[in-house]
């Protein structure tokens, strides 16, 4: 009996199996649906209130999302740049201070381990953000380099403030200097006496910012942004991961682990993916010093592509959840749908799909076999699909500087 008692005190609190972010007090207050999920071990709202209103906050007003759980690493030291440039497929030496770039990195075989962003915080100081936990790979990659790698996932509080009115809201909140902040730029500023870093980055394909500060200032930051609502001019709404999932598919952003197996998790041969195969060939820069996977990728470049993750538009309005894809109705199987949403703004079935290529070319026709329920009965239908070269949604205001005020 006694030992059981003791265990209770030494084991973690079951109510806190999932970590609380610095914004938790507010997140909990806003999350009326109690629709929670885990994101990197943090208690995270999937939907706060109604998915539709959260989605439209991103697309037509101003949304706020707790970004804290995203994996973050601080990379410093004399070899920081050398380290990053050997780690990722993109040329980081071109990344100027106060700029951000999208990157991906591979294992020796040139298969993608993860993607993320590198923030050049100030001369020689970098932050790497990733989808998945990467500390062991980063440390392994640091062999022989004079570099310090510190995980700072839990030491930085971050909010994504996105949507057409995000610029106006942040200006009204008292953040100065945003008028000059370009897409992928970084601004170090102060707000109510504490330091905030603002980057013009996001996952929505639209105008938006990400705000970074010390955890102790988290709730203050939240309050300052939400207090803009009091003027009665702007709506500001907390959004969960479900709404984000919709807009990221519209924007054509892929999700490692959902849209393709990362090399670390792929078990069977051929189930991992190269950057070319997930549409990230454009990120690779072969004209830079050696990076992990370079040799394998150079060899792959000479061969014609066998499969590719594509943005696929599916006709009709039946949801092609996990649908198999064929070269014609009841034809040969040519692929699978990985992620899909119904886009309220485009009124279309948008998906990301893994498609087999033949002689470097996609099938001439692609058909989705869709199972759906009608009054509790399963039905099957076929829908024609089209590959989209461009993101389904990308608004010009994403990159206009200064952004338009509302």
């Amino acid at each position, binding site marked *: 009996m006694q030992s059981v008692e003791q265990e209770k005190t030494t084991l973690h609190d079951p109510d806190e199996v999932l970590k609380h972010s610095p914004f938790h007090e507010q997140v909990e207050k806003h999350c009326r649906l109690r629709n929670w999920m885990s994101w990197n071990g943090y208690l995270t709202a999937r939907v706060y209130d109604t998915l539709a209103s959260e989605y439209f906050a991103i697309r037509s007003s101003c949304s706020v999302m707790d970004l804290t759980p995203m994996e973050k690493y601080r990379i410093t030291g004399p070899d920081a740049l050398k380290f990053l440039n050997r780690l990722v497929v993109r040329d980081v030496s071109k990344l100027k201070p106060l700029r951000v770039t999208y990157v991906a990195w591979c294992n*020796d075989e040139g298969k993608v381990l993860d993607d993320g962003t590198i923030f050049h915080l100030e001369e020689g100081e970098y932050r790497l953000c990733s989808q998945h936990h990467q500390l062991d*790979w980063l440390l392994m990659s640091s*062999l*022989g380099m004079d570099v310090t790698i510190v995980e700072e996932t839990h030491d930085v509080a971050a909010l994504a403030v996105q949507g057409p009115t995000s610029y106006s809201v942040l200006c009204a909140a008292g953040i100065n200097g945003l008028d000059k902040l370009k897409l992928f730029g970084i601004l170090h500023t102060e707000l109510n006496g504490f330091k905030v870093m603002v980057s013009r980055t996001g996952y929505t394909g639209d105008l938006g910012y990400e705000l970074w500060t010390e955890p102790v200032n988290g709730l203050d930051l939240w309050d300052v942004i939400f207090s803009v609502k009091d003027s009665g001019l702007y709506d500001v709404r907390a959004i969960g991961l479900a709404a984000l999932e919709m807009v990221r598919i519209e924007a054509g952003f892929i999700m490692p682990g959902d849209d393709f197996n990362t090399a670390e998790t792929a078990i069977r041969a051929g189930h991992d993916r190269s950057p070319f195969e997930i549409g990230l060939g454009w990120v690779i820069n072969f004209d830079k010093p050696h990076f*992990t996977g*370079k*040799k394998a990728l150079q060899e792959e470049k000479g061969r014609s592509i066998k499969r590719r993750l594509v943005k696929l538009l599916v006709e009709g309005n039946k949801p092609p959840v996990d649908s198999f894809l064929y070269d014609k109705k009841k034809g040969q199987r040519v692929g699978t749908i990985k992620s899909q949403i119904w886009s309220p703004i485009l009124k279309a079935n948008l998906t990301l799909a893994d498609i087999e290529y033949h002689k470097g070319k996609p099938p001439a026709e692609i058909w989705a076999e869709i199972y759906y329920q009608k009054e509790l009965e399963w039905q099957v239908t076929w829908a024609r699909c089209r590959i989209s070269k461009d993101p389904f949604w990308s608004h010009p205001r994403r990159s206009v500087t200064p952004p338009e005020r509302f």
Partner: protein
Amino acid sequence: MTNSISKPIIIVGGGHNGLVSATYLAKAGHKVKVLEAREVVGGAASTTSFAEGYRVSGVAHILYTLNPKICRDLQLESMGLDPGTSIDTIALGQDGNHLTLGRNAVNGVDLSQKDISAYTDFKKEFRSYAKALTPLIMNKPPRLKDMDRRDLSTLAQLGWKLRFGLGANSMREFLRVGGINIYDVLNEVFDDPRLKGAIAADAVLGHHMGPRTPTTVLTYLYRLWGEIHGAQSLPTGGMGEISETLAKAAIKAGVTIETGAKVKRIVVDEGKVSAVELETGELIEASIVISNADAKTTFLDLVGAEELDAMFCHRIDTSRSKGNTAKLHLALNSLPKFAGLSGSQLAQRLIIAPNMRYVEHAFNHAKYGEYSEQPVLEIVIPTIDDPELAPEGHHVMSISASFAPYSLKQGWENHRDRFANKIVDLIEGYASGFSDIIVARELLTPPDIEAQYNISGGHWHHGELTIDQSFMMRPVHGAAQYDTPISGLFLCGATAHPGGGVTGIPGHNSAKRILAMGAGK
């Protein structure tokens, strides 16, 4: 390969394997330059002076036969190759009753008839296993995926040798013992503890292994492989003479050898070697670079991690390459008197490993970063047949002592003398008055071997010879066919397949591989 006329093939390291590789390539018409960091060639196969007037084989002291094919190909006999006097192994008994282990026969006064005949059968059987492995040893290890014709032929020959060379019964037995430990096998075959102790010592010497460690049968077979061609011997003039002969053959074939030339960096350009940079800053362009250095030195120090993929570097970094054997060199003012050993017996290879428990206990210490309280010793007195190595009437004794871990828990600084004293005391127990005749001594721990011979970890084989670091995984997967992830960079030393010992085989195999690749095969 490209441009053999202007830019030479550079070999980093003039160890015996570097010299063998160089000679084969020069004979095939290539311009070859060997750059050796030390003042003499030979690396761990060289002769050194450790006290005024006393010379000894610096590291390797017993020749388990240089490969005969290499001797023929490189016409080493006409260069004056002198393997020296053949020697037997004597297992010292604590009571002065010793056993003499020959190639085929064992004898000793109190040895049972059963053990005597079992020994002959055992040696015959195990030599046939070792012989069956010849195709594997003398070729690049076959890849498991994407085999080329050479790999298929190696595997076919290996299969043929195992099945038809050995016969069905022997093959079955070989497959049974191949994966188990020498401890179990010897207990099945023999009774006499000294006999088992001496053979077990052969299986573990130079490795981080005890007799009960799995796959010690394979390390024993590797050791035995030299015996299929001839006897072990003490080369006249020390092991350095073997290397000097190889250097002569190399020079005759047109190789240029530079000593005192330490390579600081192997220069890589766009994933391809272009040159080497010496410590002096001098840059020497190269068409191909072949490294005789160990894998860690080659990839992590000379090439540098930034030119290589991360996982590959990690594999190199975590490969086990910490040495476990020390060398003790003693200058003696007269011959020691071992109880029960005649004068001619004293000139043989003396083993102190009285039983298998002793060997296992010696190893136990190494597991915990300690040196053996009672080490396993391999002792030779080369001056009995080769008096030139010491002042008149004096002698040198050369001892390989196991186990002496590279990373000693307490650090070697204050323990070097203590360990040397332990060895001397141990011998004193077999040869009373021994300590009084010692006039000078030198102990080389694995860190000393690392520093003096440029072998990272100071390991006998430039890296443990375990299954996971052998064959197509030696030194690691990704560099196991002598070529490496860097185009134009090759390995030719003990770090590569099949491993260490003064055999010349990695040197031979690497040259064959390079020539085959150049010919587009």
